[in-house]
């Protein structure tokens, strides 16, 4: 078990404001999982920060990478 939340899945979904957004599934240190939906700008930054060119490449990344993109 890691000491921090990690991304265990990501997919593209429709955002409230009509853009494509990134739905991230996070697994927390206690094993619980939950989704967080990132707006398009934040999602694009996350992919860039992680050097990802496909959403599947986000799996295994720390939740902190999301914050770096904010």
């Amino acid at each position: 078990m890691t000491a921090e939340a990690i991304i265990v899945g990501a997919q593209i979904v429709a955002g409230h404001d009509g853009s494509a957004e990134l739905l991230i599934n996070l697994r927390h240190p206690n094993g619980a999982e939950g989704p967080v939906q990132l707006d398009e700008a934040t999602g694009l930054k996350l992919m860039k920060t992680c050097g990802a060119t496909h959403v599947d490449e986000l799996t295994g990344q720390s939740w902190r990478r999301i914050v770096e993109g904010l």
Partner: protein
Amino acid sequence: MYDVIVRGGLVVDGSGTPGYRGDVAVLDGKIAAVGKITGDARRFVEAEGRVVAPGFIDPHTHFDVQLLWDGAAKPALEHGITCVVPGNCSLSLAPLRAADRQQVIGMFQQIEEMPPAAFTEAFDWTWEDFAGYRAAIEKSLSINVAPLVGHSVIRLWVMGPDAQQRAATADEIVAMQVMLRECLDAGAVGLSTSFVDVDENGRPVPSRFAQFEELDALSAVLGEYGRMLQIVPEFYAIDITIARIDQLAELSLKHCIPTTFSPVFDSTATPDNVARTMARVEEQFARGARVWPQMQTRPIDISFSLLRPSLFFARLPRWVRILRQPLEQRIAALRDPETVEKMVADTGPDGGERMMGRLVIRGGDSAPNALAGRTLSEIAKDRGEVPALALINLSLEHGLDVALLSANAGHEVTDRIGPMLAHPLVHIGASDGGAHLASFSTYGDTGYLFSEFVRKSGAMSLEQAVRKITAETADIWGLKDRGRLEAGKAADIVIFNADTIGRGEEYPTFDMPGDGMRYVRAATGIDTVLVNGQIAYAGGAYSDARAGVVCV
């Protein structure tokens, strides 16, 4: 002698009870009688074969700016809307000092996507306080307005630049209470706040710097008037939304106020979110709290172009790499045949037919008007190309400024949404009318309610649907004179064809100040709309009537 008698329609009075054939008489802006009416009138409106209902109420809009030059909030009125609630999401145009206007304009542009000319050419800033703003819009209203006052602008009024920097002091909170009281006295129907919105620089709007004590103190003032607190919760995370529901419930119970939050929408990617939200809402209502979730009727479409990076391509690594580049390099890459060949190959052996073929050209951009509304698949066939190649070449031919639409990408499964909308604790709203101008149309949601959830799926009866967006909305918001066809109530009436009412096709138009573009939908199935007893829209045209009021 009545002013108007609407004769022989199916009267669906907003109460939810079965419709019946009857007449509605109007005198001095009020409904004088409903039933079989034999008296004379200056004007008769024949409603045979049509539904006669109370005017629809749209509880979540951003028409604050548009109302200053367009008192009908077009095209809301032609869709049967007779009352709009602007000032949502913590933003209103008053109270606002002259020195702070530019800052709030930036916030409005971020939310509404309104062109700068809307703020510099379309009206004169004649006010600073809420009463002044009310006077400015009241001059030419043909639709009714029940305005919220925004928490962010109250904060800005009291704290100046610090409003977007820090928590308020005890004295500042008291000053905000005083200002809120002044706004409520001047006709505000409540306070809006946001835990999500940002300004044009991506910075949190002022309301997001408030501590709970501040919201509690402002809610206490709302309690003095029994008025609404509207919030935008952190809807990107369901657990935080649920925590906000609990917080709203505490405020509702403590101060005896109604509260509402939006948006609430369904997604097959997070299929439990709405159920979890509603479970918590039900728990809190059972405790006596009023925490109304607002849900939109329309599905969510995704729009994008190659002009800016989009997550739409986030499953195509080569596309991501290329579209991530600065504009000049991006265009160069898209002009390179070898690169394009690989990009097209990435979309599959069908050249992107399955992945992109159903994308629709939106119009309102640099693409030829003739292409608007057509699918990429159709256009590709005409061009003798596969869809992925057509997308690239068409975009290149127009400086990449070709807007594409992926329709029904969220909140789109009618069989799931219908029962949600019919839930007795779901407040139908969240249209965002007057906002997102350049992204999608925020008009026609009420027509869609009837076409999709009454006619097509049968999730609710005609009478239930009418009740949801009339009497129920009026009750939630405390709009005592609205929402019912009942003697003594305001004569806000919509006459429509139950077989044809719909939201209409979306199309771009350049009717914003400075020739600004927005997407709209023209109403279908709406015959006549009366506002306070005067015909504001009939036969496909707006009248000169200016009977709209700021209603409380």
